């Protein structure tokens, strides 16, 4: 029995205006634009799948794959252009916490407001009121207008209302990352608890989070389902997707490719190719290149982009002050790193060959690497470090100690 069924669902967007800044000024131009033939964009193309009762399905894909459109369709926010979605049971979407909060209203009033907007009955909210307040931990301030709350309190209260919905189907966006560490743990516990009772659809671009929660994964690309199955297979489908994505690299069109990156590989401490490493592990990146002519003064750069799209780190030959002189023909450049500082998550890789500021080749999002938690590291990044302990009596031995090998973390 299915809880959710999508039957050949497509969604078309008609775009009449590409940029807000490009809005025409004159009245005639405005009218012409309004009645112009719109640019057609298919956000979803013929998507069909079913989700069984009690299943936990993850949906991943790069930006623009159609994930948010799918989310909006399932939540009923917008309707498909063709096809049909059948939902059996009460579906609740945790898309954004604090939906419908009003700053002038008190905590209690906002609980009722937000709760009813999310589809609860007033009686149901009254029954759960104590649980909601305690979960958010805002009991002392419950009769104070929400505009006096700290932003953390608002988010906690918002999540708390949403977490008490008791749906048959739970639609999750990346809302789990709210509040401090203690509250985040509470949220994840709550989702795990809900998962036991209801069907879960989790839409994310964080592979690690999806793996943690889901038994089945759908990988989407350009509005279509390209993989549907076990979590393990989804990983390689997603990686392959990132590698072969034909996105034009920025700024390279005008420059002839005198040198080109042929492949990029990650190698672990044991010399084996890997796609998954742990924070603090040794890692090598091996880049194979092909130069058509001799390229003096070349440098290589590797960028690591996080799931949030932000640049997290770079490896480069450029900072060393030394440059590589490439002879015509093939060759290999290898970066190595003793202890990887990146925090757990999935990263997209750009690799670049540069000569005097010209990018001879820019391989855009050419690989992915999954970093898993090593030992539990807190903070923004892991910094390799050493330590030693000294007792006062041994201070005299200081000089001797300094010469001894230090303890590795």
């Amino acid at each position, binding site marked *: 029995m299915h*809880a959710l069924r999508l039957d050949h669902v497509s969604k078309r967007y008609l775009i009449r205006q590409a940029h807000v800044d490009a809005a025409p000024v004159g009245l005639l131009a405005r009218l012409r634009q309004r009645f112009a033939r719109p640019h057609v964009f298919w956000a979803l193309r013929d998507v069909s799948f079913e989700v069984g009762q009690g299943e936990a399905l993850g949906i991943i894909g790069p930006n623009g794959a159609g994930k948010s459109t799918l989310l909006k369709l399932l939540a009923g926010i*917008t309707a*498909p252009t063709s096809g049909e979605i*059948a*939902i059996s049971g009460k579906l609740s979407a945790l898309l954004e916490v604090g939906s419908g909060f*009003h700053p*002038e209203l008190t905590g209690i009033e906002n609980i009722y*407001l937000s709760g009813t*907007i999310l589809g609860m009955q007033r009686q149901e909210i009254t029954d759960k009121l104590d649980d909601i307040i305690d979960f958010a931990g805002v009991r002392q301030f419950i009769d104070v207008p929400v505009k006096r709350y700290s932003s953390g309190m608002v988010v906690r209260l918002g999540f708390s209302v949403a977490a008490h919905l008791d749906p048959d189907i739970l639609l999750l966006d990346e809302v789990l990352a709210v509040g401090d560490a203690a509250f985040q743990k509470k949220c994840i516990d709550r989702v795990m608890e809900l998962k036991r009772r209801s069907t879960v659809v989790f839409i994310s671009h964080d592979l690690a989070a999806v793996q943690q929660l889901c038994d089945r994964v759908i990988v989407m690309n350009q509005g279509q389902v390209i993989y549907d199955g076990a979590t393990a297979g989804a990983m390689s489908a997603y990686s392959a997707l990132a590698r072969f994505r034909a996105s034009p690299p920025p700024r390279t069109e005008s420059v002839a490719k005198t040198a080109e990156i042929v492949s990029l590989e990650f190698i672990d401490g044991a010399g084996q190719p890997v796609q998954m490493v742990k924070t603090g592990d040794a890692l090598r990146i091996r880049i194979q290149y092909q130069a058509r002519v001799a390229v003096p003064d070349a440098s290589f750069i590797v960028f690591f982009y996080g799931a949030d799209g932000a640049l997290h780190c770079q490896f480069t030959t450029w900072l060393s002050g030394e440059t590589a002189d490439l002879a015509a023909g093939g060759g290999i450049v290898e970066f190595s790193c003793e202890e990887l500082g990146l925090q757990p998550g999935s990263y997209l890789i750009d690799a670049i060959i540069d000569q005097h500021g010209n990018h001879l080749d820019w391989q855009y999002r050419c690989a992915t690497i999954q970093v898993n938690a090593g030992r539990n590291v807190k903070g923004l990044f892991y910094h390799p470090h050493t330590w030693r302990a000294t007792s006062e009596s041994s201070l005299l031995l200081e000089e001797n100690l300094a010469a001894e090998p230090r303890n590795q973390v």
Partner: protein
Amino acid sequence: MRALSAEEVLSTPFPGRPTKNIRPPSFDPWRIWSAGRELLRYRDLLVTLSLHRINVRYKQSILGWAWALIQPLALMLIYTIIFSVVTRMPAEGVPYAVFVYAALLPWTYFSTIMTNSATCLVNHSGLITKVYFPREILPLTYVVAAFVDFLVGALVLAGMMVYYRVPVTPYALYLIPIMVVLSAFGLALALFLSVLQVRVRDIGLAMPLVMQIWMFATPVVYPLSAVPARLRLYYDMNPLAGTIESFRRVLLQGKPPEYSSFLEASIIAFVLLPLAYLFFKYREASMADFI
């Protein structure tokens, strides 16, 4: 009883659970039925949001609820000064202050619905793009809030009628169907305009001006009897003329409403309302994409 085939078992939804089908939008008249049932399921949201409208409006204002009275009272004073001191306006045998207030009250109710609800969807775009609920609840809450203001204002009218000793006759019971028609007409336009405003923002900008013109085209500050016969045709085309005039007639003059114009207004309101609702539900499906 025959056994269900495997396919039927698979396609049978869970017993006792509502099954919802999301389809491309259509103009199927049955939508009114299913949408109405869904609206009924969301009645608690309607209640909460309406309470919220009423509460929030006067929060952090010193005069608070008095504002619901100040607005019609101030208008009444202005028009009374202009039309009974500066120049004389026939008031059909009652003091001009009561005469004008008895029409300003239903007029303010209607115009508040129009100006607030025309922009209500756009003003709640944050909600509309994030959560699903029947969107007609938003304009409906403005109708409810305006009605509460109307009731507060009605207390003042009652006070004035006692003060000026205006007798009340059983014809005053006509106020109930008159208010029903006025609300239905207001709601129909609110549904229609709010959904148009999503794509054409000019509606909200034009609203205050349109309402100003409409008010002077309606017998609010003057009686319908003062309108020259050659202009009566235009008044017959304005469903509000009959409604507002009837409101004042049954209350102050103790006469029955002008049946023909009131009937016309009723027909317009109750034909328009389902059409507007159908149109609203059709556009609702893609509202989040344009807002």
